[in-house]
Every structure is written in C-alpha cells, then in structure tokens.
C-alpha cells in the first residue's frame, strides 16, 4: 500500500524528464537574451563615456568635421556622411539590377536555368567580405585610378565593392519574394489578356513590393556594417569627402584601424567606442525599419 502511495505522490519519470528539458531550453534562451542585453549595455556605456567622462559635447561630436585625435578634435560627421553615402550609392545601383535579375530568373528563364543559378547565388552569398575587398583592391582600385586619375582609392571604389557584395543577397531575397506571389495572380492576369510584361509590372512586382523593399533595406544594412572590405579600398582618410574619387573613411573603417592603435580608457579610444555606438544605433534603426515594412506589408 505504501509503495502505491509513494508512486502516486512522487513525480513520475516522465515529469522529471519534462522538468529537465524545460530547464535546459529555458536556460539557453535566457543565455541568449542576457547576451543581447549585455551587448547593448556594454557598448552603450562605453559609447557615452566620451560625453560623460571626458566631457566632450555631443553636438560637436555629431557635427564636427575634423577628426584629429592628436588635437583632441573628434568630429564624426565625415565618417557618418561617408558611411551613408557608400551605403546609399551601393543600394541604389544594386536594387534595379537585383530586381531585374530576379525577374529574369523567376518569370522568364526556364526552371532548369534556375536550378543552375541557385547554387551559384548561394556560393556568392557565402563569399567572405574580405575576398570582395581583396578583389576591389587588386582589380577595381587600379582600374578606377587609370580611368579617373588619382590613386583609385575612395568612395567610388567602396561603392563598387559593396554593390558586388550586396547584389547576391538582394537578388536571392527578391527571388524568394517573387516566388511567394501566388500563381493564380499570374494566371488571372494572363486570363484578362495581359502580356507577360504587363503581368510582371502591374501584378507580380506590386504584390511583392514589401518583400522587395525588405531585401533592399537588408542589403543596405549589411553594406552599412561592412568593415574590412570597405577599409581595404576607401583610402582611410578621415576627412569630409568632396567627390566620388576622394579618399574617405567610414565609421567601420576608422574603428577597424583605430581600436588597435589607441589605449583603452583614453579620450581618443572612447571616441572610437562612440563611433561603435552610432553603428549599433544605426543597425537598430535598420531593424526598426524592417519591422515597419513588414507590418505595413501584413495589412
């Protein structure tokens, strides 16, 4: 009798397993959540040190055009402008070409070609950014130098490299979105007597609009955060850019070259962490933008 009672009152093997499983999976998610919180807190606290500890004014940091750590001038505007310029230029060039390629692949070319292209795109998405930067350094920079004079390093070279880098990502995302447009839409449009081009421009692309916008923002977010590929070709002169061929520096490239050359805790080091904070905030902003687009697309 006691044995039965004990069996009924103590947790069964199944429920003990359940507890163990719950603890393991809850722990994992807590670790990840905690990690994100730690990253945000650490980078924010380091990023504001320049303004709180060293008393540098936020306005001067954001609007100053001189980045001369040796003279205690930390104007981040040139880097912010350059980062946005290369990102926007690369996005503007890449979007139409990605869209055209995706339309050709999903709507025009036979499915067999598709099967051939898919692995190539997958490979390109996986090509390390350093390799893109290296090709930029050895192929694009010398050509640009010969075409336009000068060294070839600069904003145009960085734009070309980033364009090449985000094109596969944007194309593959656009392909996915065009594929998600129901086949009935196309058939209905064809049934009304529309040509293929009319169907593409008036039915397929409008209904995949949100997804295409997502692909573009995603690609640009990637371009904005890219460090080494840009650093290799942009010339790394932290000055206000005055043309496509002038050497410049982005937030990421200054960070890459600077962190190793400054001592932790000094003002010039703190200024670099403030640049990292801008990068962090921008990636949050891109994230927010993606959410807004997704929300609008859902309605």
């Amino acid at each position, binding site marked *: 009798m006691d044995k039965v009672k004990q069996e009924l009152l103590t947790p069964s093997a199944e429920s003990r397993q359940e507890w163990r499983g719950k603890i393991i999976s809850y722990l994992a998610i807590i670790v*990840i959540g905690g990690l*994100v919180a730690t990253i945000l807190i*650490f980078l924010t606290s380091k990023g504001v040190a320049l303004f709180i500890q060293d008393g540098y004014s936020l306005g001067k940091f954001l609007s100053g055009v001189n980045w001369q750590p040796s003279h205690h001038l930390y104007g981040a505007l040139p880097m912010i402008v350059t980062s946005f310029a290369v990102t926007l230029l690369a996005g503007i060039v890449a979007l139409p070409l990605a869209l055209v390629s995706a339309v050709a692949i999903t709507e*025009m070319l036979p499915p067999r070609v598709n099967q051939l292209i898919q692995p190539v795109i997958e490979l*390109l998405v996986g090509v390390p950014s350093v390799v893109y930067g290296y090709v930029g350094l050895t192929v694009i920079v010398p050509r640009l130098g010969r075409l336009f004079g000068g060294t070839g390093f600069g904003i145009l070279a960085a734009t070309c490299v980033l364009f090449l880098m985000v094109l596969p990502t944007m194309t593959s995302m656009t392909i996915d979105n065009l594929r998600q447009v129901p086949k009935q839409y196309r058939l209905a449009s064809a049934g009304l007597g529309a040509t293929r081009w009319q169907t593409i421009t008036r039915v397929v692309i409008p209904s995949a609009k949100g997804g295409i916008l997502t692909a573009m923002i995603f690609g640009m977010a990637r371009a904005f955060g890219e460090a*080494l590929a840009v650093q290799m070709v942009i010339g790394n002169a932290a000055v206000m850019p005055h043309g496509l061929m002038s050497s410049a520096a982005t937030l*990421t490239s200054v960070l890459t070259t600077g962190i190793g050359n400054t001592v932790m805790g000094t003002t010039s080091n703190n200024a670099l962490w403030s640049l990292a904070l801008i990068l962090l905030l921008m990636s949050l902003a*891109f994230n927010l933008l993606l959410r807004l687009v997704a929300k609008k697309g859902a309605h």
Partner: protein
Amino acid sequence: MRAEKVDKIATAVVLSLAGLVGLLIISFLGYLLVVGLPNVSWHFLFSPAESFKSGGGIRDQLFNSLYLVVLTMLVSVPLALCAAIYLSEYAPQNRLTATLRLAIEVLSSLPSVVIGLFGYLVFVLQFGLDFSLLAGALALTILNLPLLTRSCEDALQQVPQLQRQAGLGLGMSKWRVTTKIVLPAALSGIITGAILSAGRIFGEAAALIYTAGQSSPAISYTDWNPFSPTSFLNPLRPAETLAVHIWKVNSEGLVPDARAVSNGSAAVLIITILAFNLLARLVGYLIKRRLAK
C-alpha cells in the same frame, strides 16, 4: 499590338541586363579561381607563413580557421538548438516571447565589427582571455547564434503537428516527444543549417581581428596536449585565420609575394565554402533518403 511590342522589348532589355549581371558574377568567380588556383599547391597548403620573405604557405591559418569553426560549433549548436526548442515547442504566445524574438533579431542585425569589438571588450579584456582562439570562438558564437537558432526553429516547425500529438497521446512527456520524435524528423534541416552557418563563419574576419588576433605563433602539430602553449590544440593561443590573413597581408604589405599569397588564400576560401555548401546539400539529401525508407 502595342502591348505585345512593349512586352518583347522589355523582355529583351531585362534578359540582357540580367545577362550582364550574370557575366559580372561569372567573371568575378572566374577571376578568383583563375588567378588563385595556380598559387595553390601542396607546398602552399602545408608550409607555414613567412613574415618578410616570399614563398610562405597558409598551413597554420587554414588549420586555425577550421579549428575555430569546430570550437564555435561546439558552443553554438547546443545553445541554438535548445533555444530553438524553447521557441518552437515551449514558448507561450506572450510579450516575453515577442521580446526574446526581437532580441534575436537585433543580434542578427549587428555588424560583425561591432560584435568583434564587444568580444574584445568582454572576452579579451574583462575575462582576460587575451587574443585567443577561445575569445574568437565566443565572438563567432554570438555572430552565429541568431541565424542558427532561426534555421533550427524552422526545421523544428516543419515537423507536422500531428506527430507531436501522437506522441503526447501515448503519454510521453513533451520533452520526450521533442527529443525522440521531433528532433529526428527535423535532423536533416538542422544539420544542413549548421553546415551552412559553418561556411559563413569560416570566412569571417571583422569579428576576429580583435578577438582571435592577427598573429600566429609557431605551433607544433605533434604536441597533443591542449594545455601546452605551443600545442596546435591549445584554445588559449592567438590565432590568425585565413580571412584575417588575406586582410593583414594586404594592409601591412611586408611580404613581397602578398599578391600570390592572397590570390591563393582567396581561392582556398572560396573552394572551402563551396565544399561546405555542397556538403550541406549532400547531408540533407542523405538523411532525408534514409528517413524515407
């Protein structure tokens, strides 16, 4: 009649532009392979790098890259899988879950250089790991977690709900249903996702230059004691990976044959990533076929 003409012209324009993009892409990949492959030889793959002389190889860098991928996967796969199990099987539909999903999304959007800096701040300086494989692996884990979690969750979600209900109906606990029914069914998707993410971190450099470091001290491949400072298995030694090597050789330029070394390294990187992609497809296919039997 006019609409048909427009259709024809537009088709021609779109196809020729797409062809141009295709040509660009093919010449990009072709250039890397044509210029790079002649530099790849057994000597190149299996001799150590030179700092000031020409004729150096990439033995240590290649090994470091692969070892770093293994270390990263050791940490990130269990963590991502358990988190995916939570999100897919246990997570209630509430604000906390939404916040956690948002956190993972934020993590996936962080630039790799920012993750590298965080790794430098926390793992290298705070934890006192110095520039080491371990610090690099932890940074890569952060980089890898969000995408891996998502691909694991997708794989788990694709298992039909009916199979879970059948298991629960037999009186199995939810955890048993997950580990004995759902996981095996989702295995091919999970492994494919893991291999693809391994390929992605294999070529990562920005997150590593300030965590795993940019130098590779002499290491011995006969020393199997992971605690010995010169052992190739020691996770606390600084380690330059292949992608970092390409960057460093080009930005410092102390090696006379920087072009040859980086051409060869780039070709090796591309081929390895291609191998990872093909392996992912193959493994996914094999597991699916075995389960179908």
